[in-house]
């Protein structure tokens, strides 16, 4: 009996040793497999970000580019205006208001996309399995056409001589065109249109998993249609709502084509402001600083948002 125990002990030791070796080899192999991805992220992700950070602390060159001279002017410029004559700094809200406008538009577009996307996703999720793929296909079809072309298409529809205005005037409802193009509403509608699929797809993914027996159970327990929506469907679809809102808000905040074409460049959004620094204004450091500030704004709002929605979820659970 004692021999037997000793024997099993040594077998177990050898087994553990062999397992350690196998695990070590596996870890080594894992790094080798990860290497291509890590190198790609390093070159195309971290390296450009480092350059951006570096440039934002340098001085602009006269004809674009940068001169190697340390300066925090780019960040100062964001909040203050330098008096041409006596060099004193005066607070200026020009750029802040551009950020505010962008955040407002992106937020509005996110809410709009959620209001349109939620029933759409629910509609698709409640279809029989064979039909769902067709509906999802239809949702993704616009993706196949270049965003620029699609935005021009909207432009053609809503401009003064566009389809809507011509029809309205033809029917005698109005006698002169309604100015829709180059307004905030046009940008707002364009953003919703561009990013709606990013809202619908994650919402669908979470609603597809929704157990409709839970909806029945809620009906059985005296919940009206609205109460079922509020207390069962929305909480269950929450991961999709969070993901969809992030996916619409972030690209919406940095949108370039939509405000450029539909907003007419009159009122800038962040994307246009940054683009301008690298072209017309020839102020690369300020462009870099604006981009980094946008990144920080996005990250902070994301952390706040995720933490808030996470807390909400815990409250229910």
């Amino acid at each position, binding site marked *: 009996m004692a021999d037997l125990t000793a024997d099993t002990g040594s077998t177990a030791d050898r087994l553990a040793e062999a397992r350690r070796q196998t695990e070590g080899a596996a870890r080594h192999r894992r790094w080798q497999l990860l290497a291509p991805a890590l190198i790609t992220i390093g070159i195309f992700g971290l390296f450009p970000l480092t350059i951006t950070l570096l440039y934002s602390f340098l001085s602009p060159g006269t004809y674009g580019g940068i001169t190697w001279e340390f300066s925090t002017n780019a960040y100062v410029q964001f909040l203050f205006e330098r008096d041409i004559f006596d060099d004193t700094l005066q607070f200026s809200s020009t750029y802040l208001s551009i950020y505010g406008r962008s955040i407002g538009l992106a937020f509005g577009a996110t809410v709009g996309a959620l209001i349109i996307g939620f029933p759409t996703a629910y509609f698709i999720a409640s279809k029989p399995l064979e039909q769902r793929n067709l509906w999802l296909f239809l949702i993704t079809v616009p993706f196949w056409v270049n965003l620029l072309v699609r935005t021009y298409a909207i432009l053609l529809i809503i401009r003064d001589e566009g389809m809507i205005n011509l029809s309205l005037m033809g029917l005698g409802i109005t006698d002169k065109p309604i100015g829709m193009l180059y307004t905030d509403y046009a940008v707002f509608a364009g953003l919703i249109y561009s990013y709606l699929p990013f809202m619908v797809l994650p919402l669908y993914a979470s609603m597809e998993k929704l*157990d409709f027996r*839970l909806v*029945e159970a809620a*009906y*059985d*327990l*005296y919940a009206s249609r609205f109460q079922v929506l509020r207390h069962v469907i929305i909480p*269950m679809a929450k991961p999709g709502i969070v993901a969809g809102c992030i996916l619409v808000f972030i690209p919406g905040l940095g949108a370039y084509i939509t405000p450029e074409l539909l907003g007419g460049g009159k009122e800038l959004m962040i994307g246009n402001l940054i683009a301008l620094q690298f072209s017309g204004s020839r102020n690369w450091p300020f462009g870099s600083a604006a981009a980094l500030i946008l990144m920080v704004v996005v990250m902070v709002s994301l952390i706040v948002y995720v933490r808030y929605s996470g807390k909400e979820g815990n409250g*229910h659970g």
Partner: protein
Amino acid sequence: MAQQAQTAATASGSADNVMVHAGRVTKTFGQGAGKITALDAVSVDIRKNEFFTLLGPSGCGKTTLLRLIAGFDLPDAGQILLDGQEIGHLPPYKRPVNTVFQSYALFPHMSVARNIGFGLEMQGRPKAEVKEAIDRMLALVQMEHLADRRTDQLSGGQQQRVALARALAPRPKVLLLDEPLSALDLKLRKEMQIELKRLQGETGITFVFVTHDQEEALTMSDRIAVMQSGAILQVGAPKEIYNNPARRFVADFIGDINILDADLCDNGAHVILPSGTKIGATLSEGAAREGRISVAIRPENMGLTTPDAPGAALKGRVTNIVYFGAGHNVHVALDGGGEVLVRRAQTDAQIGAEVGLTVPDTVQVLVD
């Protein structure tokens, strides 16, 4: 409405005592060639404070009938009265009826306590009342210590209790149970059977229980309705259903049974078995009074004896003996063809031995 209730009252005899009345309820699913009649003009009265079971194989319409009472589906024809009120076309949230689902359908994003309080909360009851009801229900199902748990952290049996408490908390007039024990293992199922019976007694609520498990039905029910192909074949107390099955299907479905050919004689008072033995007959209402019929005898009501004993109504040869713990199943091939099962606590029969079989004094005549 009042007149309908009146009609129902007349039909059932004692309206005061009826909680749920289904009158010629028909429900079909699908269209054209794929059309399925799930319920075909089914009528039944479920009494107040009764443990009523709908028993039948899958696809017999028992769950459909339950869903019609709950309001998840609406009947194509016929009426459903709850405590004298027509409810057939009300949505589920307007019926004072709650359901315990086969899958439990607990809300995974809520705690045990919130699940239990959900119904009352949706009714807009004051917070204090909801809180008090949750505590009472937790005590009733002995789950006080788990009030704040998430439902996916519970075992199957605990989820079952929460589902029960959630459905009972709003004090429904009728509690519907859709095969709630089928996901539990045998030992837990037996415990829950007793538990359910206790809860029904303590709350005084009418329970309508759906199952395909005949043993479960016999154990718990005050009355059982046996269903097949969208129709109710027989309604009765467990003993009545077991001992006097009116239909061949009912006899076959519940427990083991021997079905033998026989001829009616004496205007239905007696039957003559193929061996020539004459015994008393129990006829169900409306059955034929003469001709070739089938009779049903339970295995435990048959006895083994010697082939030439005076009581031996049938003769045969033992083909197999199966021990199952509480007794033996003795399989006997009859001399005239066919096989019967005899259940005895003790037996000294040997495989291959010639035996005689005793039968009860009266037997149940089956209608096909």
